[in-house]
């Protein structure tokens, strides 16, 4: 089994190749079967590695030397440890469910086969990202998933708005990637290696090579990359736009897997981050700020997918917050549970959109629980999970983050609660507006409204179950659990000594407080959207703070005015005036000046190229003659 590690990423790549080349000849059913089959097979192979992984081993397999410098080299090689194995299960497991779902969701799309090809390619790159045994392969996967994100956001490329969203995602990620690259250059310069096994070897004394300043610089540069990929301030604005892609893409790439790559990067580089306390602080505040900022925007969005997108930004912020607090396991735990319930919510939203003939505006929905009963139930489960109602998955993971915040300071705890209450409010606002109250859908959409086929509801069911029981992965000791995930990850993720200054009674008290506040928030949302049956205003009628939130704090407009427009203007000026007129004019001026000068003193030459050529040819002949004569 261990010798087949290479097959795990290769299968999706094979799927991509077959589907890509056969996109126009394969029947849809066959294409969907190949697409799903490759991912399921990769999942099963991953599961097959459970034995050695559970016994605390780390597996590796090197295929060939990929890149080599004068004093470093990296292999095209894989490493499966506890961290990457869990990521592989999430990627291939949730990935397989989303593939199956797509077979139903994309069934009528004329480019159905391309969709599966791109989705398979994505899984390949994502596996490369988590399985690579060096930073360069991680970066290859990192940029590769960005490419797939580009292809899938702009999947319906007849629409130029979608194309713009795709381009924005790619370029914004490139900004982050440059930061990441510079971090890699610095790592290479200081340590002379990019291989995990060399950098983070047991007993390796990193501090012997670098100062705190070096570690701070490296980790801050990594954070720039992570902020791009995981949509954190200031590089988050691409993610809401990325909702232009088909909904399964939003679920897989823009919620469950790709956007968590930044968290994976930090966990992979923990040895660096531990030596850079300043960076951890930055991470904490950045994550918290993003979490609150995005959640406030979520309050006033009316596109079902946009609400979920801002929620994703906010939840990712929460994970970074946790990393900054030093609660690494809690961050990773939340990554896993979030993958379950956010994929569920997105696929549920997809089911709503599918059932409503493409409608995404929640102001034009309402009372859908009767029409889409299965979708309603799973969506409710997802909402309860993200809101943090016990014992759903989100409750357990979020609780561990908040507890870590409390250990740090009550202020952070309060701010963290604030972010999660905002989440609760807009998620229930969404739930109530979509599934409860009076129907506001137009008749046409309602007549055709239908529950989704089994291929879509089945994955929904599985994800719903995972969203319920996912919390047991790291069930707290307080409630009779044994922190399984924490123990499982201990070979890779070593958390700082657990503080035990929080007594059990305090812990219970905090938990109770949080739950009570969440319930109160749900009641508030209930009051507003069910009792009073409030419906969000048209965008044009928003005013004051509401308008600012609805318009996303005008950040897109700001970036446009500060970065995009000036660059375009500069480009136009340099390209049309400076380069051809001024700089080239200078060259021409020098040329004409020389010619005028020389013809003034010796009126021999007229600048004719013919003469130069003649002289050149004559010169060569002369040389040849020279050879024969002497």
């Amino acid at each position, binding site marked *: 089994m261990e010798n087949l590690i290479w097959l795990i990423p290769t299968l999706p790549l094979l799927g991509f190749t077959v589907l890509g080349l056969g996109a126009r000849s394969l029947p849809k059913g066959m294409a969907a079967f190949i697409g799903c089959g490759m991912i399921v097979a990769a999942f099963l192979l991953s599961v097959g590695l459970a034995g050695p992984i559970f016994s605390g081993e780390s597996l590796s397999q090197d295929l060939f030397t990929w890149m080599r410098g*004068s004093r470093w080299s990296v292999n095209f090689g894989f490493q499966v440890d506890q961290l990457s194995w869990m990521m592989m299960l999430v990627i291939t497991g949730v990935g397989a469910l989303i593939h199956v779902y797509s077979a139903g969701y994309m069934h009528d799309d004329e480019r159905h086969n391309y969709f599966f090809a791109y989705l398979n390619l994505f899984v390949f790159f994502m596996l490369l990202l988590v399985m690579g045994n060096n930073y360069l392969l991680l970066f290859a996967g990192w940029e*590769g998933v960005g490419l797939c994100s580009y292809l899938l956001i702009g999947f319906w490329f007849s629409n130029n708005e979608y194309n713009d969203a795709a381009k924005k995602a790619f370029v914004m990620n490139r900004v982050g990637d440059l930061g990441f690259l510079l971090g890699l250059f610095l790592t290479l310069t200081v340590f002379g290696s990019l291989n995990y096994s060399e950098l983070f070897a047991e007993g390796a004394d990193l501090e012997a090579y670098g100062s705190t300043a070096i570690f701070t610089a490296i980790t801050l540069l990594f954070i720039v990359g992570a902020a791009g990929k995981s949509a954190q301030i200031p590089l988050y604005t691409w993610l809401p736009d990325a909702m232009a892609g088909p909904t399964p893409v939003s679920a897989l790439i823009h919620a469950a897997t790709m956007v968590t790559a930044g968290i994976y990067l930090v966990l992979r580089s923990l040895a660096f981050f531990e030596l850079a306390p300043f960076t951890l602080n930055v991470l904490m505040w950045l994550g918290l700020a993003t979490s609150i900022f995005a959640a406030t925007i979520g309050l006033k969005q009316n596109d079902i997918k946009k609400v979920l997108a801002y929620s994703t930004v906010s939840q990712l912020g929460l994970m970074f917050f946790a990393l900054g607090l030093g609660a690494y396991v809690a961050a990773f735990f939340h990554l896993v549970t979030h993958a379950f319930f956010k994929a569920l919510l997105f696929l549920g939203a997809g089911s709503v959109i599918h059932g409503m003939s493409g409608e995404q505006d929640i102001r034009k929905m309402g009372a859908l629980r009767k029409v889409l009963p299965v979708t309603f139930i799973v969506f409710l489960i997802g909402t309860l999970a993200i809101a943090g109602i016990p014992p759903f998955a989100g409750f357990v993971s979020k609780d561990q983050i908040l507890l870590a915040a409390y250990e740090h300071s009550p202020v952070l705890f309060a701010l963290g609660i604030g972010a999660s209450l905002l989440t609760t409010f807009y998620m229930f606002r969404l739930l109530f507006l979509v599934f409860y109250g009076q129907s506001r859908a137009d008749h046409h959409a309602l007549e055709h409204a239908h529950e989704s086929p089994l291929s879509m509801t089945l994955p929904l069911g599985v994800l719903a179950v995972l969203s319920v029981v996912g919390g047991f992965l790291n069930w707290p000791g307080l409630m009779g659990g044994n922190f399984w995930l924490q123990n499982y990850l201990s070979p890779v993720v070593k958390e700082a000594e657990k503080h035990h200054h929080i007594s059990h009674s305090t812990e219970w008290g905090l938990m109770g407080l949080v739950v009570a506040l969440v319930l109160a928030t749900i009641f508030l949302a209930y009051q507003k959207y069910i009792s009073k049956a409030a419906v969000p205003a048209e965008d044009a009628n928003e005013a004051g703070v509401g308008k600012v939130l609805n318009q996303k704090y005008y950040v897109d407009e700001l970036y446009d005015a500060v970065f995009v427009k000036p660059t375009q203007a500069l480009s136009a000026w*340099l*390209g049309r005036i400076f380069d051809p007129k001024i700089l080239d004019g200078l060259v*021409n001026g020098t040329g004409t000046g020389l010619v005028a000068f020389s013809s003034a003193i010796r009126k021999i030459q007229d600048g004719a190229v013919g003469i130069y050529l003649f002289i050149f040819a004559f010169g060569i002949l002369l040389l040849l003659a020279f050879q024969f004569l002497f």
Partner: protein
Amino acid sequence: MLTSFVLFLPIIGGLLLTLFPGSRVSKWQALILSCVAAGASISMLTGFDPNAGKQFGIQLQWLPTLGVDFHVGVDGIGLVLLLLNNLLCPIIILSTFKQTRDHEGLFYGLLLVMQGAMTGVFVSYDLFLYYIFWELALIPAYFLVLLWGTGERSRTAMKFFLYTLVGSLLMLVGIIYLGVQQETPSFELAVLQSVQLSPSASVLVMLGFMLAYAIKIPVFPFHTWQPDTYVQAPTAGTMMMSGIMLKMGLFSIIRWVLPLMPDALFAHSSWMIWLIVIGIAYASVIAIQQKDLKRLFAYASIAHVGLIAAGILTQRADGITGAVLQMVAHGVNAVGLFYICQVLMERRGTNDIASLGGLRQIAPWFATAYFIVLLGTVALPLTNGFPGEFMLLSSLFERYWPWALVAGTGVILGAVYMLKSYQESMLGAPSKADFADLDGIDKLVFLPILAAIILLGLLPNAIVHLVQPTIEALVRY
């Protein structure tokens, strides 16, 4: 002998072709000759030992009183460039197969002479012999633009010719100065290496050489001949110039300046690199708002080759290795990009981006080929553009990190202009007008290019393996 064979086969064959300008079979003759040269170059690979320095060498006295020898051979770097030249040329010749033009014999003859002259630059170990090939390559390029170009071609051709020629004259002065330092004049690389110039003389000679190369490559601010020339040259000529000819300049820095004037170069490399990396950002910014696809690719090329030049000037092993990798990648991608322009021109009669669009749906193979070349150009990992770019930027970072930051803007802006132009020329609502997807010849041209993009992205080590010993022996810093 093999070196001389691949050197003179295209030159003599090309000259013969020019004698029959009206011949209709000359394209086939040219293709066969270039394929033979390609085959012979590949066969050199089999007997090549990366650790053995110069191989397949031949040294004959040519002009003993002047100290000029016919001395050719290949080391690792020379062999890689020789292969690039001789493998790209058949593809470039094939890319013209659907076209008919006046005086075909002359056209193909000139292409072959150019190929041979460039080979001469890559294999010469005698500085004077090298200079002859260096200038010889210019003549066919000039006539290709003058006779088969578009627009203001005679003005453009003249400017191209004069600019690069004038730049080279100072190099010639430097060459002669170097050659006469011995009691008996010699232009032998090995002999010149033992010449001890005074520091100031060394700097002057170095500057003379570097000016010639800066114009030829071209790097900012000596690049203004390039956009017009690339746009107005016949596409095969553009491919020859951007794909191969500009590498003569880059290669020459490695072959001549690094061993002969390393200290002078090192002392002055700081401001040169600053100029070049600013030029990278400059050309990348300009590329964004270009309206003509060919001109956009021309500016993109300035940015890309600037990075290669900067990497060589770091005088570090990784910078030079990255430069060799990127020379190959840029050659392959440039041919791909300009062939894309030709496909569009052939079917739509224009490269104006605004009048294209909506082609992806109706020409999926073409769209895929274009996109893969694009990925190589933006240096996505696992394509040919990445390994070189990584090593180049990394070597810049290692010597002085702000350079990597400025040059790194090209990483971001490259994505901007490539994706923007792809979106505007290919995506959007399907075009109403017909657009034939790739035909047999198109596929034959694209196939090796796309294969090279992927394979060199996965196995850059194949090239590194060939050049690393040569480079290790070269660097002192």
